[in-house]
Structures are given as C-alpha cells and as structure tokens.
C-alpha cells in the first residue's frame, strides 16, 4: 500500500497533462475497458465452445441411439454396442456411497471447528482437513492401490461379510477382489470430505452469534443450540456444500479409474468392479479407434458435462443464499 502511494506521489509531480495526452488517455481507457471486458467474456465463451464442441462430437452416437443410449446396459466395443447405463449406474452408486460416508464426517468436523474446538486446535485441524484437497487425484489412486485395496481384501471384506454377517445381503455378496465399487466410494469419500467441510464451516461461521446466544439463554444445551438454532439457519448452505461435494465425486477421474476395476457391468454387490462415466472415458479414450466408439465416449462426456453443470449451478445457488447476508 505504502509502495503504491509513493509511486503515486512520485509521478504526479512530474505529470503535467496537455490536451493531447488527455485525448490519448481517454483512448487508453477505452482500450483498457475493451481488453478486460474481452478477458471476462472469454469465460462464458469458453464454456459455450466446450459445450458445442463436445455436443457436436457426441452427436453421431446420440442421434443413432437416442435416449436409449442412457438406458442400454451393454457396452461392448467389439460388437459396436454402446450403452451408457453401467457407467451412469457406477457414477451414481460410487458418488452416493462417498456422500453417505463423507457427509456425517464433514458435518462433524465443521461443527467441531466452528462451535466446539478450543481456539488453539481450530487452525491446525482445519489446515489438516483442507490439505486433503491439495493431494492430487493420482496420488490418492496410488495410495488406494497399494494400501486401501489390500486392506479391503483382508481385514475389511471378511469383517463385513462374515463377522457382521452382511454376506447374505446383495450389497456384500460375491467374490471380493479389492478393486471394487466399495474402494472407489471410499476414496471418493476421502477426496470430497475437504470440499464439503470447507463450505459447511463457512456457512456455520456465517450464522449470527445472536442466534446461538438466544438458544443458550433459553436454556438449551450446546447440542440443542447447534441442532435447533445453528443448523436450521445454515441448512441450505450445508446442502449446497454437500451438492458441491457430489459434483466433485461425479467427475473425479484418476483415483476412481485406478480403483474401481473398470468393468462395464451393473452388479448389486459393492465388492464387484464397475465403471464410472469419467473412468470409462479415461480408460478407453486413447484406445478408441472406430468413430462410433469415439463418439460414444464423447456422448458419455456430454452427459457428464450436463450433469455436473446442473449439480454445480444448484450448489452455488444454495450456498449463495446463505452467505450473501454475511458479506
């Protein structure tokens, strides 16, 4: 700040403006305006170009099979059959699994950090959770292959199946190879946790202190205060954070590709391998030789694009509803 002020006063002393420089400066302003407007406009333009070019590339596949592209469950490259249902199913199930695991954890951490933790603990714990977001997807995948999957094979799988007797339910039946929907869901849960908790923490902090004081003054316990006075106030923002996490989970590629087993089948068991839309594209794109295959992959990309667009727009709107007051 001081630096800029010095710069200001230093120059103004020597700056004598003639009529001519006044004209060029008006021109300079106009050029500057056009320039920054162009930069700003490039963002919507980029999104439109992305939508159009993926849409065009996907068109042959979409026009050939129409809506049945989404419901057809056979993805057989050799036979030239391309149905996206297994990938859509895998995306939905792995993301749902991730949300089921990550949401209570993220809520717990956020409540801990905004309401309960002693001051000295807030920053380090918050930092550690935030750091999860900085780890690249491919590193999660590596860790998953060599640490998580062996764990799922040995203590976790048999524990779920035999000790908890869940093997009889369709969710945990069949062979347990490790590479599975369960592995993908778990790694996704870890990966989206920091996103949900960051937004949740932000909206919890946006809740006015008077809201808490009023609840406590009425004799509420701390938990009752959080449940009845804080969470309802922040509800739509919390839901926004969860949906934002969902958006991340839907499109997460590398870690899932490395852990889900990449098999285009719909299986009820979480121990079975599967596919997600993102992992399908990542896995087959560079090997796709026929135009039909390529176009089908582009169509999967178009579906992913549309779904994440809607999910993100919804999430932003919900978060904005809560935080607009506090800014």
């Amino acid at each position, binding site marked *: 700040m001081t630096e800029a002020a010095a710069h200001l006063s230093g120059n103004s002393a020597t700056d004598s403006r003639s009529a001519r420089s006044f004209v060029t*400066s008006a021109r300079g302003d106009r050029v500057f305006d056009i320039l920054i407007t162009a930069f700003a406009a490039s*963002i919507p333009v980029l999104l439109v170009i992305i939508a159009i070019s993926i849409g065009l590339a996907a068109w042959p596949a979409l026009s050939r099979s129409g809506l049945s592209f989404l419901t057809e469950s056979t993805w057989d490259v050799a036979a030239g059959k391309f149905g996206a249902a297994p990938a859509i199913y895998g995306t939905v199930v792995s993301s749902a699994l991730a949300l089921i695991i990550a949401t209570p954890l993220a809520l717990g951490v956020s409540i801990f950090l905004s309401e309960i933790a002693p001051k000295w603990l807030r920053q380090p714990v918050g930092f550690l959770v935030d750091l999860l977001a900085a780890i690249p997807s491919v590193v999660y995948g590596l860790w998953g*292959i060599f640490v998580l999957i062996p764990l799922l094979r040995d203590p976790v799988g048999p524990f779920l199946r035999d000790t908890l007797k869940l093997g009889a339910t369709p969710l945990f039946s069949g062979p347990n190879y490790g590479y599975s929907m369960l592995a993908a869901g778990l790694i996704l849960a870890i990966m989206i946790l920091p996103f949900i908790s960051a937004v949740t923490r932000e909206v919890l902090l946006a809740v006015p202190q008077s809201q808490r004081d009023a609840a406590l003054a009425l004799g509420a316990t701390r938990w009752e205060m959080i449940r009845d006075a804080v969470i309802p106030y922040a509800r739509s923002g919390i839901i926004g954070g969860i949906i934002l996490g969902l958006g991340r989970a839907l499109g997460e*590629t590398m870690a899932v590709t*490395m852990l889900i087993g990449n098999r285009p089948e719909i299986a009820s068991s979480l121990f079975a391998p599967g596919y997600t839309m993102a992992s399908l594209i990542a896995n087959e794109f560079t090997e796709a030789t026929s135009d039909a295959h390529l176009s089908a992959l*582009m169509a999967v990309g178009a579906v*992913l694009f549309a779904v994440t667009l809607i999910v993100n727009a919804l999430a932003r709107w919900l978060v904005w509803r809560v935080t607009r007051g506090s800014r």
Partner: protein
Amino acid sequence: MSRRSRHARSNVMMGMTYIAAIVATLPLLFIIFHLLRQGAAYLRPGFFTDMPNPVGETGGGMANAIVGTLILIGTASLLGLPVGVGAGLYLADKRGSLLATVVRFLSDVLNGLPSIVLGIFAWEFLVRPFGGFSALAGGMALGAMMIPLVTRTTEEMIRLVPVSLREAALALGYTRWRTSVSVVLRTALPGIVTGALLALARIAGETAPLLFTALGNQFWSTSLREPIAALPLQIFTYAISPYESAHALAWAGALVLILIVLIISLVARYATRGRYAGTGD
C-alpha cells in the same frame, strides 16, 4: 426429557464431533506416512537427473517428467494468468453489471467442471484438428482450468484495496487504466500472486486432462509440439504397471509431486502473510 439426560445427550453428540475430527484427519496422516515410507527409500539424486529405465528394470529416474511438468505449468500460466487477472479486474471494476454477474457465476461453474471434460474438449479442439498430441494442448487444457481460480482470487484481492486509494489516484489526474494497473493492481499484487500460486499447485497434480493432450513421453522432450512427459502421468503409468521397480518409482514420484504442491502452497501462504505483516499499520 430430564435435564440430566439432555445434558448427557449433548455431551455424547459433542463427543461424536471430536471423533469425526479425528477420523477426518486420519486419512491425510496415513497417506503422508506411506508416501514418506515408500517414497523416501527411492528418492536419491539420480531420481531427479536420470531418464526412466526400460520397463521392468530397476533404477532410473524421472528427469523428463519433472521437466515436463514444469513446462506444462509454465505454458498453462501463459494462458491462465493474463486471462484470469484481466477477468478479475473486470469483475471488481464493473461489480454490478449483468456481464459481471454472469461471468462470476459461470467461472464458478467452470471451476466445478470435471477436469476430464476439459481434457476431451482440448483433444477435440486442439489435438484432433492439429494432427497430434502435444505439450501445447496439455498446457492449454491446464491453463483453462486455471482461469476461474485466478479470476475469483484476483477479484477478491482487488476488492480489498481501499476505494480511497483509487480515488486519490483519479484525483491526481491518473487515467482510469493507469489507476487500475499501477495503483490498484499493484497494491493487490501479493494477494494475486498467492491466488496464482494456489492455482498452480492445483493444476500441477492434474492427470486426467493430460491423458488426451500431453499424452506422456518415455524420452527427453522439451518441444511444445511434441507429446511430453509429466509427473502425474508417469505416476499413473507406473502405479498400474505390474513391476515392483515401477511401483517404487511411482511412490518416489508421488512424494516429489506432493512436495512440489506443498512448497508452492507454503510459498503462497508466506506471500499473504508478508502482505499483512508488511503494511504495519
């Protein structure tokens, strides 16, 4: 419910949040532990200077991938920084205009777009028409990812600049663009640098967009027109290969990648700290 049971219940729920906090920090500690244990063993000077050995042989390094990653994020910055800072200037300047509202919203949407979608877009737009995979296409895909990140932090930082400073400059006869560039932007610079570094840290580890653009390269290449190796791509290839020696390299590579990301993030934090400590008043 009696008073006592209400309090007991409250205490139980409070205890649950403690447990949640512990469980949520465990994965990070585990990941760091395994990275250090598996990666450090292989991290010797040769790792940074040697080329990869033929598949299945032990030894070798990732010199080409490390240089490739640096070239890719450099190229990405050439696209992402000017566009992002320019758009951020616009958003802070024309705060209430319709275009600003639209751009702000769409940059958040772009930020939430899966990186693989940007990857297939870059392939369709930059690889297919020009007849081949290239470092340039990879850099552009990563640069597109940087734009929304840089835009929003630039806007936030410029908004922190006191209006009085801007008014003082205008009152002294500065034109609006000179005011924006040499007073406002300059004041907000440390914050903008921080935002840019965080954006770099984020794209440095991206893999999915590079699969269809930079592709990866077993050999030494620094040309923007050729496929280029990148650290995340190399980690991916080695992690899914069947060879033990490749796994060791993957762990070491992951450790280096994490260190690069961490160092960039720490420098970014340091830059912001300097900003608040340095003004003094």
